[in-house]
């Protein structure tokens, strides 16, 4: 079900009574003028939930696009959280969209599900016709449709971690590459750990040894990280945590020996299971932690490099502008182009760490392009 709420913005939802949604809709209406064009690109925002960060990304994208390409895009918004619980993914959300932007993991899950289901349906009918030896015209029509389906609306998932994207790709398409084949792209929010390592060295120039925690999803990065650390003149010690491990017993020795500790983002389960103990042990051993999220810093880490909604939105705008709507390009996973930094000055004071101006670190991190 799609409803057009303004001339160039469609706000799609299934619970029109939500006050929150009405507010957002009002904001969208205010942001965009009422201009209609026959050549407009139908851009669908599939958003996990109407929370601040998600809406911020969406509105920033629209704002930026309108600035650069006025009247080029017609926007439609749909919140996954407002779908009826009984509704399955066989819902023609993406049928008429020219471009789909999913914001959040749940939105990606939904979009991927639809895409996968649609593909399976066409393939199944084709196989059935072939088995029944249907006439060539029908078959050709189906094949034509199958071909057309190959030029499906590209999907770009933002605000998604590497591990989540990998997991969803495997879930709906079998592998990441198959997801790419279905014009599914992703802009990861996981900042490269090498940035965190560099920031750690900048913050703690005297640090000799860096402790790094890896999960099973990120274990493969150990070598790369070890080299990065080594390049900065530090030694490294890695600890890999499994779901059944006691994180304390494994992390405690590593933190105890390190001058700085860097947890690498992994699966959500690992992240949650280890965060409390990493922070507790860091406090206990007075070892600063350079983490990967703003929340982590607020919970007790010294600093973090993370993707802010603004960072994500800007990269999304850039991707949309360059997107190939003819289906020529396969999907792709993009690392975060921009980053943000956050410091816990209280922790820094406790650990006698002097934090300089943010621009200093930004310049040093080669992040001049923000």
């Amino acid at each position, binding site marked *: 079900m799609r409803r057009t709420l303004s001339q160039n913005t469609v706000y799609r939802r299934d619970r029109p009574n939500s006050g929150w949604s009405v507010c957002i809709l009002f904001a969208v209406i205010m942001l965009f003028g009422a201009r209609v064009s026959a050549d407009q690109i139908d851009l669908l925002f599939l958003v996990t939930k109407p929370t601040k960060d998600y809406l911020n990304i969406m509105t920033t994208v629209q704002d930026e696009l309108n600035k650069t390409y006025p009247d080029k895009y017609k926007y439609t918004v749909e919140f996954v959280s407002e779908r009826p619980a009984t509704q399955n993914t066989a819902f023609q959300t993406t049928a008429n969209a020219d471009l789909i932007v999913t914001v959040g993991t749940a939105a990606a899950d939904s979009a991927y599900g639809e895409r996968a289901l649609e593909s399976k349906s066409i393939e199944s009918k084709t196989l059935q016709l072939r088995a029944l030896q249907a006439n060539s015209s029908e078959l050709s029509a189906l094949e034509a449709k199958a071909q057309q389906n190959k030029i499906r609306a590209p999907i770009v998932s933002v605000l998604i971690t590497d591990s989540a994207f990998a997991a969803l790709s495997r879930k709906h398409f079998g592998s990441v590459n198959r997801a790419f084949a279905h014009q599914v792209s992703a802009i990861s929010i996981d900042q490269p750990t090498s940035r965190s390592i560099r920031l750690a060295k900048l913050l703690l120039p005297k640090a000799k040894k860096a402790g790094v925690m890896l999960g099973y999803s990120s274990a493969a990065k150990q070598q790369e990280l070890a080299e990065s650390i080594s390049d900065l003149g530090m030694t490294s010690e890695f600890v890999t945590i499994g779901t059944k491990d006691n994180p304390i017993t494994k992390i405690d020795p590593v933190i105890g020996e390190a001058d700085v500790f860097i947890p690498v983002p992994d699966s*959500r389960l690992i992240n949650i299971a280890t965060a409390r103990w990493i922070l507790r042990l860091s406090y206990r051993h007075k070892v600063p932690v350079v983490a990967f999220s703003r*929340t982590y810093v607020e919970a007790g880490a010294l600093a973090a490099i993370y993707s802010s909604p603004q960072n994500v939105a800007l990269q999304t705008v850039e991707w949309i502008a360059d997107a190939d709507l003819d289906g020529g390009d396969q999907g792709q996973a993009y690392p975060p182009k921009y980053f943000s930094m956050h410091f816990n000055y209280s922790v820094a004071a406790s650990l006698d760490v002097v934090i300089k101006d943010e621009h200093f670190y930004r310049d040093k991190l080669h992040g001049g392009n923000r």
Partner: protein
Amino acid sequence: MAAKQQFSSIHSRLLITSLLPLTLLCIVLASYMISSQRAVLLANLHNTGSIAAQQISSNAEFAVYSNNRKMLRDLGESVLDIPAVNGLLFFNASQNTSVSIGELDPDMIVSPQKYEFAKPVYRDHNWYFYSRVILTPPALEDYDEGQQPAPDVLGWVVVSLTDEILEEQYREGIFAIVLVSTLGLLMAAWLSMRIGRSISHPVELLTGVVESMEAGSLNNLAVEAGPVEVRKLASGINQLATTVRQSNVRMQSEVARATAQLQITLIELEEAMEAQDQFLARMSHELRTPLTAVIGFSKLLSIETDAQKRDENLRIINMSSNMLLTMIDDILEFSKARAGGFALEKVSFYIESWITDLMSIQRQRAEEKGLTLSYTIDKTVPQALVGDPVRFTQVISNLLSNAIKFTDAGSINVAIRCLSNRDGKVTLYCSVADTGKGIEEAKIPTLFDPFSQEDTSINRRFGGAGLGLSICKNLVQVMGGRIQVRSKVGQGSTFSFTCQLSLSTAPNAEALIGASRDIVPAENVLAGMTILVAEDNAFNQKLIVGLLKGYGASCLTANNGQEAIEIASELHVDAILMDIHMPIVDGVIASETIIQQSGESPPIIALTADVTMVEQERIIKAGAAMLLLKPVNESELINSLNQVITNSKDSAVPKGAGLLSTVVPVEELKQALYQSLDKLDEQLRNNENGSLREIVHDLMGLSGLYGMTELREMVLAFRADYSSLNAEKNLLRVKQIRQHINDFLAS
């Protein structure tokens, strides 16, 4: 009893009133505070235990998760510093005891599995507080869309708190509360006593003052102190005491005055009694003196044979009897004056004739003493006057007797002159001047008092009851005048008086008065007449009978009223002499009965020694034709008898004789009779018999008194029949009586 009295005092009641509620309040408050303190202490203990357990559990998360016993021990020991915490116990996830700190008996601790959370467990003076050690996973991803994992229970912590400190604090609290309450109560009691004393003390003082007032001491004043009401009360009591004191003083002075008055009265009474005693003694002496002479000379008379001596003896007896009679007359006059005054007659008289007679009577005594007696009647004095000549000459006679009595040599002059003669009213001035011994000036004011003489020696020298001047004074006052005396010792005295008389219009007053006076009845004047003498005293009876027989009358005697009635009804008598006081039936009733008897009743002359006016009225009403006083004057008795008998006989053909024609003006009698008839008419018309009998008696009295025999018969017949006749017939009878009176008086 003493305790009850003590508790009934105002001070005790004030104390009870203030202290009893206060004590109850203290007990209630102390109980409440003790119980609430225990609740607070217990709540604090529970709070401490709960907080300690929660804090430990939240801090022990890491240590329990990592099974770090040392850390747990450190944590536990830090909690042991909290007072009342005496141990901790950590359980791990499998509910095995991980670490036990402090003095804990593991057997007393309930396994966490069986424990109901949020409720501490009490066992053996220890409170056990349970808290879960929970691992809450933090959200550390910025855009986390997954659900928060359920918290894991890592283990439990049990904190043990002993209640010894609580009990100790509880005891200290109780002690403090009791101490404070007791102190407060004592202070309140002290204040109550002070305040109560400030109220009760003035009241007690007042009570003391009132008690002393009850005992008679009114000089003690209440102190005006204390509360306003008590001050007002004290002021009121003081005012009351002052008023009572003043009242007492006033009363005492009144009592003293009354006592003094009483004493004066007593003295006067004693004096009066003494005067009376002296009078009685004098009377006794004066009465005995002539009486002794009478008795003595009577005896001499019986044995004396010499005729000359017998005559002398008889003269002395006669003189002594007259003295005695004069004295008794004086007493009776005085008694009459005291009883109700004198009733003055109003008759026309020739004054010079009366004075001449009086001088004639007194001249003999004057001449016996060698005195010159003269009289002067001024030309201004009218010859004929209306008044009571007897009383008028009685006064002059008394004064003249005294003058003769107290004058040894010289002369006595009686002078009468007219002070005023206006509108028929004549005021005379009479004086009796002597050349006697005179009267001391100091004695003059009491000279006219009864029973008093200038001195007691007078009585012995001159005799007399001392009543003469008192009687004169009364008589003069009745006659509208005033008596006075001028005297100089050794030179003589002049007694003078004034009196009011009227001018007479009667042409032959002289003749009337002359005919009635001093007529000596002729012998056998009563011859052929039968007279009934009703007298219970045998001697008197004999005397009267002897006297009457001396005048030729035949006498019948009756010893009492009953006998008189019987004789009068059975025998013919011409007249009845009726004594009033007699046994069986007295004279009054006997007279009434005789007069009411049918037929012609004889005239009755009542004899009595009772001089009271009431008695006289009674007898006249009873129908007596005349009243004579005892002792009987012989000539008066005979003349009276002769008069009533003659009247009775002449009644059939009245000739204008008798009392009616001689002394009473016809018009006055007519008026009196008509007044009675008018009353009778009115009574009959109104059918009222209340005073009918009295009117009839009046009519009978008038007719009897003035010799109207026929009228008397008619009235008697009316009295006998009026009750059986109707009003019209009675009125007709009254009309006939009226006609008869008219005819009689016109004739």
